[in-house]
C-alpha cells in the first residue's frame, strides 16, 4: 500500500514538473530566450527522474516489470519519448525541439493520469517475458518515430522561413536544417530495428497463445502499416538518397496519418489490444 502511494506521488510530481517544463519551453519560443529553454530542459530531466522512480516502484510492486494497464502504458510512452529526447538534446543541443516534444509528453502524462482512477486488472494470459519485450520495443520504436516526425515538422517550418529569404527571430530559434535532418535520420535508423524486433516478439507470442484470429486484429494491422511505412522511408533514405525537405514532409504526413488511424481504430473497432 505504501509502495502504491509512493508510486502515485512520484507520478504526480513528474506530471507537475512536466507541465512546468512544457510551459517553460513554449514561453521560450514566445520570448525567444534560450536560457528559459535551458531551465526547462533541467526541469524535464527532473520529471524524467521521478517518472523513472515511479517505474522502479512498479517493478517492485508487481511480478513483472510492466503492467499493461492504460496508466502504466501511457506513462511508459511518456518516459521513452522523454528519454530519447533528453539523450538527443544533450548530444545535439537543439533545445527548441523540446517545445514540440514536451507538449506530447505532457499529453501522454495527462492521459495516463486520467486513467488512474479505473486501474484495469491486467489480463492474466498476458503475463510473459515476451509481451514485456514486445511492449518495450514497440513503444520505444514508436517514440523514436514520434521524434523523427517532430524534427520533420520543424524542418518544414525552418525550410519555409529560409525560402522566404528572411532571417526572423523564429528562424534563429529553430535548429539548423542539417541538424534537424540528422535527428530525423538517427531516429528512423534506430526506431526501425527496434520496432521490427518488437513486432516479431508480438507475432511469436500471438502464435503461441492465441493461435489464430489475431492477424486481422485492427491494432495489429495498424502497427504493421506503421512499420511498413517507416521501413519504406528508411529505404528511400538509405538506398535512394532522399534527404532534407522530402524526407521531412513524408515523415510529417506519416505521423499525422498514423495518429489519426490509431484513434480511429481505437474508437471504431473491438481489438485484442483493448488495454492500450
Amino acid at each position: 500500500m505504501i509502495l502504491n502511494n509512493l508510486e502515485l506521488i512520484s507520478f504526480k510530481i513528474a506530471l507537475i514538473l512536466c507541465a512546468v517544463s512544457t510551459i517553460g519551453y513554449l514561453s521560450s519560443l514566445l520570448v525567444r530566450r534560450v536560457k528559459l529553454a535551458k531551465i526547462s530542459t533541467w526541469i524535464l530531466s527532473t520529471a524524467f527522474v521521478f517518472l523513472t522512480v515511479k517505474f522502479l516502484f512498479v517493478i517492485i510492486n508487481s511480478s513483472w516489470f510492466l503492467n499493461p494497464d492504460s496508466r502504466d502504458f501511457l506513462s511508459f510512452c511518456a518516459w521513452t519519448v522523454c528519454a530519447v529526447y533528453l539523450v538527443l538534446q544533450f548530444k545535439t543541443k537543439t533545445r527548441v525541439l523540446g517545445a514540440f516534444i514536451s507538449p506530447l509528453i505532457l499529453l501522454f502524462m495527462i492521459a495516463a493520469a486520467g486513467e488512474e482512477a479505473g486501474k484495469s486488472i491486467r489480463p492474466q494470459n498476458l503475463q510473459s517475458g515476451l509481451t514485456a519485450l514486445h511492449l518495450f520495443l514497440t513503444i520505444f520504436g514508436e517514440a523514436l518515430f514520434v521524434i523523427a516526425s517532430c524534427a520533420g515538422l520543424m524542418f518544414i517550418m525552418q525550410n519555409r522561413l529560409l525560402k522566404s529569404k528572411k532571417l526572423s527571430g523564429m528562424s534563429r530559434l529553430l535548429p539548423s536544417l542539417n541538424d534537424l535532418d540528422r535527428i530525423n535520420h538517427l531516429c528512423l535508423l534506430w526506431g526501425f530495428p527496434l520496432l521490427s524486433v518488437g513486432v516479431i516478439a508480438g507475432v511469436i507470442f500471438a502464435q503461441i497463445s492465441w493461435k489464430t484470429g489475431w492477424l486481422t486484429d485492427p491494432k495489429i494491422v495498424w502497427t504493421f502499416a506503421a512499420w511498413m511505412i517507416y521501413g519504406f522511408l528508411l529505404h528511400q533514405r538509405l538506398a535512394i538518397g532522399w534527404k532534407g525537405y522530402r524526407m521531412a514532409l513524408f515523415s510529417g504526413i506519416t505521423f499525422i496519418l498514423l495518429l489519426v488511424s490509431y484513434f480511429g481504430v481505437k474508437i471504431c473497432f473491438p481489438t485484442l489490444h483493448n488495454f492500450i
Partner: protein
Amino acid sequence: MIALTGLNHKTASVAVREKIFAGCQEKKDVLPALRSIVGVEEVLYLSTCNRVEVIASIAEDGKALKALSAFLAQNGGLTDQEAAGCFYEYRDEEAVRHIFRVASSLDSMVMGESQILGQVKDAYRDALEKYATGVVLNRLMHCSFRAAKRVRSETGIAVNPVSVSHAAVELAKKIFGSLDGKKILLIGAGEMAELTGTQLIEKGAQSIIIANRSLAQAELLAEKFHGKAVSLDSLEKKLVETDIVISSTGAPDFIVTAAMLKKIHHQRRNRLLFLIDIAVPRDIEPAASELENVYLYNIDNLQDIVDENVHARRKEAIRAEKIVDEEVERFVNWQRELESVPTIVSLHNKAEDIVKAEMEKASGWIGNLTKEDQEKIEALVHSIVNKVLHSPVTVMKEESSDISSRDIVAAVRRLFRLD
C-alpha cells in the same frame, strides 16, 4: 573635473581624421606632451580610424580643455579653418556619458561592433604604462568597461549581423549547423566573394574551389586560400561536390541555371545547397530557389536581412542607453564621495561606532566603577580618538581646494575602509 575633447566620424571628414591620426602616430610622446599642459592632472588618449579623443582630469577652472583640443589640432597640422567645428568638448557628467557610450559601441559607425572596446582597453593600458592616469581616470575606465560589458550581455545590440558577408555566414549556419568540412565554390573572383569566402573558412569550412573566366586570376586567388582553380567549363562537375556557392561574376546571363541544378540534383544525392548570388546582373537563375533543398539568396535578400538587423540594433540601443545612464549615475555618485566633507563625516562616524562598540563590550567591569570614574574613562577614550583623527582631518580640510585632494581622500577612504 573630468573633461573630454576630440572628433569622430560624425563631426570631421575623413581627410581631417587622417591628418590627426597621422600626426599622433608620428610622435610617440603624445601622452607626456598632453600631460605637460597646465592644469591637466590625468590624461588618456584614444585614437582609432573613426575617432581621436582625449579624456582628462583637469583643474576645476576648465581652462585646460581648450588647450587640449588646440594641441590635437596643432599636432595634426590642421589649419584653423579645418579645425573649426570638428572638435566636441564635454565636461563632467557629459564627458563620462560620452566615454561610456564610446566603449559600449553606441557611438560607433557600425553600432554594436566589438572592436572599439578592445581599442579603448589598449588606450587605457598605454596610459597606465606611462603613469598618465590616476584615481579618477582609473575608476572611470573600469566603470566604462563594466558599462560596455553590461550593454553587450544585457541587450541584443551585438547579436545580429549587420554586414552582408556576416549575414551570409549566419544563413550558412542556419542551413548546415556546423560548417566543418563544407566545400565552397567561388564563381568569379570578386572582392565581396573573397571576403565572404574568408569568413566561411574562418568558421570551419573545409576547402574552396575558384571558378573564373580567366584561369590566371582564379589561380591567384586560389593560392591565397590554398584552394583549387578551375575554368568555368567544369562548373557543373564542381557543383556536384560543393555545399556553398558564392557567385559574383560580371556575366550578363545566368551562369548557374535551374535546369543545371535539377540535372545534378540526383548526383548530389539531394544534399543541401546554399547559393549566394551577389552579382548584378544576377548569375543564378531565380527559379533555382523553387528546387528542393536549394537555398538561394541574392544581394537584395542579404541586404534586406542586414537592414532589418540594423533596425533591431537601433531598438536595442534604447535599452543600452538606459544601462549607460545607470552606470553614469553610479560613477558620479562615487565621484561626489571623493569630496572632502562627506569623507570627514564618515570618518568621524566610523570612529564613533568603534568607540560605542568597545565601550559596550567593556560595560561589565566599567559598571563596577564609580560614576565619576566612568565619566573620566569615557572622556579619555574620546580625546584619544579625536587626537588620532586630528591630523588626517586637518590635511583633508587644508587640501580640499587643491586638485590633489582627491588622491588623499581616495587614500583615506581606502585605508579606513569607508566604501
